[in-house]
């Protein structure tokens, strides 16, 4: 089973999110970067599949040179090969992103492509689906449980309390959500191997899309000062009074 996992480098935002003065980017001076959460699970899922059924995992990202950090992160978890589709740092829209990934899929050949359901930052909810249409492959999204056999995959998710099971022939595109598994921590040998591994590179051409970002902003805040009810267990009588006032105890 040849699996490609597509990951995205996103800022690790903590207690606060801010925008650069020109309103074009998230201010990342105070933050690190990580693989977008759903995709971290996609990497883990791919590694688990190949541990059971054999095959290999390639990891791909589209982004700046710095995104090699995230490729090495995925290599440390068990991916065997890394591909950087290098950009000059400008955002690719979902149409151009899907086209660039499709070119890599056609050039290398895969049985299964895994992505996250949506990237934590842009939240476009469509790259996996556009990729599948480019390739003429079936696609299932938002998957929380996946079982793979040589003839195909069964992909499961829940929607409004109803379980949905999808049966897809291979090759296929699957987008997953966090919760499908619990990603492992990288092992020391894994990290050492990742550090030395080669990264294949190419520079896809982007293209302007019909949806153009003008600016980012933080929504008007309803931040306020919390009313202090006191310290430790001494605060409990006031806490009970507040619960009562809020109608929680009735």
């Amino acid at each position: 089973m040849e699996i490609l996992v597509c990951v995205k480098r996103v800022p690790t935002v903590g207690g606060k999110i801010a925008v650069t003065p020109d309103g074009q980017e998230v201010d990342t001076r105070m933050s690190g970067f990580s693989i977008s959460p759903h995709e971290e699970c996609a990497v883990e899922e791919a590694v688990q599949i190949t541990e059971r059924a054999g095959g290999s995992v390639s990891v791909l990202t589209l982004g700046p040179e710095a995104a090699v950090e995230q490729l090495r992160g995925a290599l440390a978890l068990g991916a065997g090969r890394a591909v950087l589709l290098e950009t000059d740092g400008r955002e690719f829209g979902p149409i151009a992103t899907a086209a660039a990934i499709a070119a890599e899929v056609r050039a290398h050949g895969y049985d299964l492509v895994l992505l996250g359901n949506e990237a934590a930052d842009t939240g476009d909810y469509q790259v996996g689906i556009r990729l599948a249409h480019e390739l003429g492959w079936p696609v299932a999204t938002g998957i929380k449980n996946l079982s793979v056999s040589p003839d195909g995959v069964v992909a499961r998710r829940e929607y409004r309390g109803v379980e949905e099971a999808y049966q897809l022939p291979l090759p296929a595109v699957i987008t997953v959500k966090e919760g499908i598994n619990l990603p492992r921590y990288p092992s020391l040998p894994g990290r050492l191997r990742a550090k030395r591994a080669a990264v294949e590179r190419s520079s896809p051409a982007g293209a302007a899309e019909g949806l153009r970002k003008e600016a980012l902003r933080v929504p008007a805040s309803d931040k306020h000062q919390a009313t202090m009810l006191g310290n430790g267990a001494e605060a409990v009588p006031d806490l009970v009074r507040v619960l009562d006032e809020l109608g929680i105890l009735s």
Partner: protein
Amino acid sequence: MSVLCLVELDGADPADVSLRALTLGRTLGDSSIGVVVFADSASVPVSALADYGVTDAYVIEPGTLEGYAPQAWGRILAGLAAETGATAVLAAGTDRGNEVLAHLGAITGLPMAANCTVVTPDGGRTHRIVRHRWAGLLLEEAVMEAPVALFTVATDAVAPVPAAVSAEKPASLQVHVHKPELAEADLVVRAAESAGRAGGASLATARVVVGGGRGVGGADGFAPLEELAELLGGVVGVSRVVTSEGWRPHRQQVGQTGTKITPELYLACGISGAIQHIAGCAGAKHIIAINTDPDAPILAHADYAVIGDLHQVIPALVAALRAR
């Protein structure tokens, strides 16, 4: 100028999120707004839809297409958009709405903007859009240039408002039973549905959520939170670090990659308040934080705060409530 909206049903009624989408969609066309409903034509909520200004309902019956098939749904929307000359096609920003509109975008080659809060026509093929990034923690202002604007409406962005009873509101709604021809390839991926996880109050709809974070300290620290949640008629929710550590199952996670909650009360215990967590709990009517750190970010989102160790505060609170 006509507009087409995918409407999901919640039992016999239009889903609340679909009515919100319709409220926004109605402002884009100048005459008609059509809806696409996958249901038996006898069970289409005609009057509820007419109240929201809908003029035409295109109904795809189970005899034509049984069950949910995302690509087929996208194909049907593409066909109806062309047939009706729609200049905008929209859906609620649910998992399903985003999925179907993404298929529609891929089929037509047009851009699709997910989870919009504002969409304004700006002449010709142009729409000005405000949409969610980071699950709504950031807003993106964007311009869409396309012959047909495709987008979904963030589920909490627009209040559902029926159309005014006047010229805007048509006398009647026409139901069209639509029988599209479907290609085999569009039907390959189709849901087999079965009952979901049974039992327990749902996190998404709970009236009270008792949240536990890193401060709980480990997998065996949740019993007092469970006890408190039960006393308050609520459920336990947790932060991402708790599920990443494997202390609790992912289905209890509140946040950007978990569940968005909308309780009367969210009691956040030992949760620092990473912004991805706030994305999940900002819909709570009231937030009370219990935290050892008076500078924890959660306090900026809380209405009330207790500074202290949850391991002392919660048992004392449980005892006080039991004594009442």
